[in-house]
């Protein structure tokens, strides 16, 4: 027996100050303040609002990714699902529906179905999540080349354009969408039995199974949710961008995982919160914005971005050793 006792996790002010979501928010605030004073135009309200609008896309993908990672899995097909949604949506256009809502619903259903297949592969066939979702990504990329070829498709859908450009009450619709999804994600994770099952599954799958957690249904559900939020991100991205093209979702694979881990969610599963992923997403967009200012070629910017993510992850503390 180990007589050593862990620290008492009481909800004191100190423990909140030391919590990962708070720390991540503090880092974002610090970077914004320093950059705001040193760089012209960075601190302008419009610019900061734009950064959060960009973060919304990462935030949506990372919401699904957080669900998956908490259960001890990983979804490497989110980039491909975003692309499929952004390129596929214009294909779902029906004359009978001038609002464009049906196209969005059809796109999200397709994205969720892709996630469902991911989940079924992981749960029933017991394929490792990395292999399953990577294979799915490759499959989707092939499909895209056949359907879309190399050309970009422009969006005609009014609702999608509204989502990408409208500002009800001065707040971009994308940010409002992110707020709604964030609230739902936090509620499901921390206030429902389903959320408790996710953490149990991630912390100890054997004990979870023996405690009656419906492992297969839960696994399929999280990958379907991840497909859904990735599809939502694809729709939003299409609206903001005006057109969809093959490769549009690629940057969001690494950033969604980085946002989850930066926010303090264990990559091994079993602990964490979406409350940390939110500042993680904002931090990543901020870094991208800062790098863009640096006068360097796209190649060097990418190298810098990759190196910075790695450095941030190392700084944010490595996974505590598990027995």
């Amino acid at each position: 027996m180990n007589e050593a006792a862990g620290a008492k996790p009481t909800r004191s002010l100190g423990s909140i100050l030391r919590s990962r979501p708070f720390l991540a928010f503090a880092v974002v605030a610090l970077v914004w303040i320093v950059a705001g004073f040193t760089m012209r135009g960075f601190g302008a309200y419009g610019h900061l609002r734009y950064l959060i609008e960009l973060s919304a896309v990462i935030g949506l993908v990372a919401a699904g990714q957080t669900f998956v990672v908490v259960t001890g899995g990983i979804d490497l097909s989110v980039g491909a699902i975003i692309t499929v949604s952004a390129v596929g949506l214009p294909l779902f256009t029906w004359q009978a529906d001038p609002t464009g809502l049906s196209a969005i619903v059809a796109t999200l259903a397709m994205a969720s179905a892709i996630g469902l297949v991911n989940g079924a592969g992981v749960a029933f066939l017991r394929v490792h999540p990395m292999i399953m979702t990577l294979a799915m990504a490759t499959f989707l990329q092939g499909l895209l080349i056949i359907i879309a070829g190399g050309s970009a498709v422009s969006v005609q859908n009014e609702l999608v354009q509204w989502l990408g450009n409208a500002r009800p009450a001065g707040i971009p619709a994308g940010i409002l969408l992110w707020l709604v999804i964030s609230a739902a994600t936090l509620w499901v994770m921390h206030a429902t039995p389903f959320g408790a099952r996710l953490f149990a599954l991630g912390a100890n799958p054997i004990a979870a199974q023996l405690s009656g957690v419906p492992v297969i249904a839960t696994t399929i559900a999280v990958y379907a949710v991840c497909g859904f939020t990735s599809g939502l991100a694809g729709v939003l991205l299409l609206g903001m961008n005006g057109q969809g093209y093959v490769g549009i979702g690629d940057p969001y694979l690494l950033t969604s995982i980085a946002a989850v881990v930066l926010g303090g969610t264990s990559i091994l599963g079993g602990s964490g919160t979406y409350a940390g992923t939110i500042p993680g997403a904002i931090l990543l967009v901020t870094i991208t914005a800062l790098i863009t200012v640096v006068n360097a070629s796209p190649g060097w910017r990418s190298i810098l971005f990759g190196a910075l993510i790695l450095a941030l992850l190392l700084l944010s503390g490595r996974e505590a050793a598990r027995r």
Partner: protein
Amino acid sequence: MPLLAARDVSKAFFGNPVLRGVSIVLMPGRIHALLGENGAGKSTLINLLSGALPADGGAIEINGKAIAHMSPGEAQKAGIAVVQQELSLTGSLSIAENIGLGAYPRRFGLIDYPALAAGAKAVCERVGLNEPLSTPVGQLSLGRRQMVEIAKALYREPRVLILDEPTSSLSAAETKTLIGLLGELRRDGVAILYISHRLNEVMAIAEHVTVLKDGVRTADQPLAGTDAAGLVRLMVGRDPGDLFPHWQPATERTAVLTVTGFSAGMVRGVDLTVKAGEVLGIGGLVGQGQEELLLGLYGALPAKAASATVGDARELPRNVPKANAAGIAYIPADRKREGLHLIHSILTNIMLPTFSRVPALKPRSRSSERRTAEQLARRFTIKGDLARPAQALSGGNQQKVALAKWMPQDPAVLLLNDPTRGVDVETKREIYIMLRDLAAAGKAVVLLSSDTPELVHLCDRVVVLREGRISALIERQDLSEEAIVSAAVGVEPQKAAA
């Protein structure tokens, strides 16, 4: 001269003293028993003696020379080997590779496999391991793995051998082999420190005993002339009374679970009836299919049956949620790996089976969760703040959590897999009382146990498994350790002279 000694050592974790001024002297050619309840500081003392942890105060002496900061490497060089309670084997490596791990014979910078095989073969023969040396350890039963662990220690030709609860997962035959082996080592002049909760075993083999209670040494004396009751008193600091509660066998018993022609894993063609209000024991040597029987009934292992009645259902549960819905609960043997979520709070652990069954998106009520958990913690005397992670609890308290978490489901059948393994005497008694109380409340309790006295004193009936089949069903009036052991090894019990 003592081979290894601790003089006045102290150790604290996070300000909690775990050992306070404890001394122990290990002499060559002597089997020294270390007794104490869970949390008494035994494991910590072993960690200090083997260099795994530094002492806060006091000194460790090897051959009479004080060592300031002994590292595990120095301890190994001094010939100190530890057989841990928690097995330290690598499942995917072979028996031979595990035995040699960290001390591989080298040849031209590569592992000398022939030399390793020869060395491993020699120690395996000594401990009675006759499996092929290339067998991956992950395929062995818990008892056999324990023997590999012991072989691994022997391979290092120790001068001091420390064994932490070595027999908790061993069968009677393996225990006998081990005890014989310890006798040989003693004659060779090895100093042996032996930790066990099984007093009879300790009384049989050890010559000297040290007792710890709450981090303080309460006895250090030759064993000759002391009795078991006296030792228990020293461990728990009070009169032990009877370890087993007194109970009345249930009068009216209706079957709640019936299977015929049941097969799962190595279990073949088992007919079994479990009745409400009884404790049904499952005995036998380690690894005769007992665990597969429980897991098959629980839907956690593919199983078949010619006919099955489980609660209202006419078929075996196909998965765990279905088993739970049919009123079956399972408490695993390996509570750290299978029973609990160590990094999660005690409250979350207690509530998990409930979370698994209520509608997925029904809002949680923190206050009612807290009330339920607090009630159960009181009822099962689980000590500690419910918000703390389960890994902060002692083994006995962890076991109580693993049992308590099923209570909100009000299961009709409780399947328990060796619930008192590695649990201290006092908690054992508490668990015994809980099990009889549950039976008295009309539950059917199925108790798989490697501890034969438990089966004799706690069960209404005992089923003994041998090679996957039922070799005997012993009713209460015929229950005795001899009857169970005879059925387990497959000999006719000697009838008392008529």
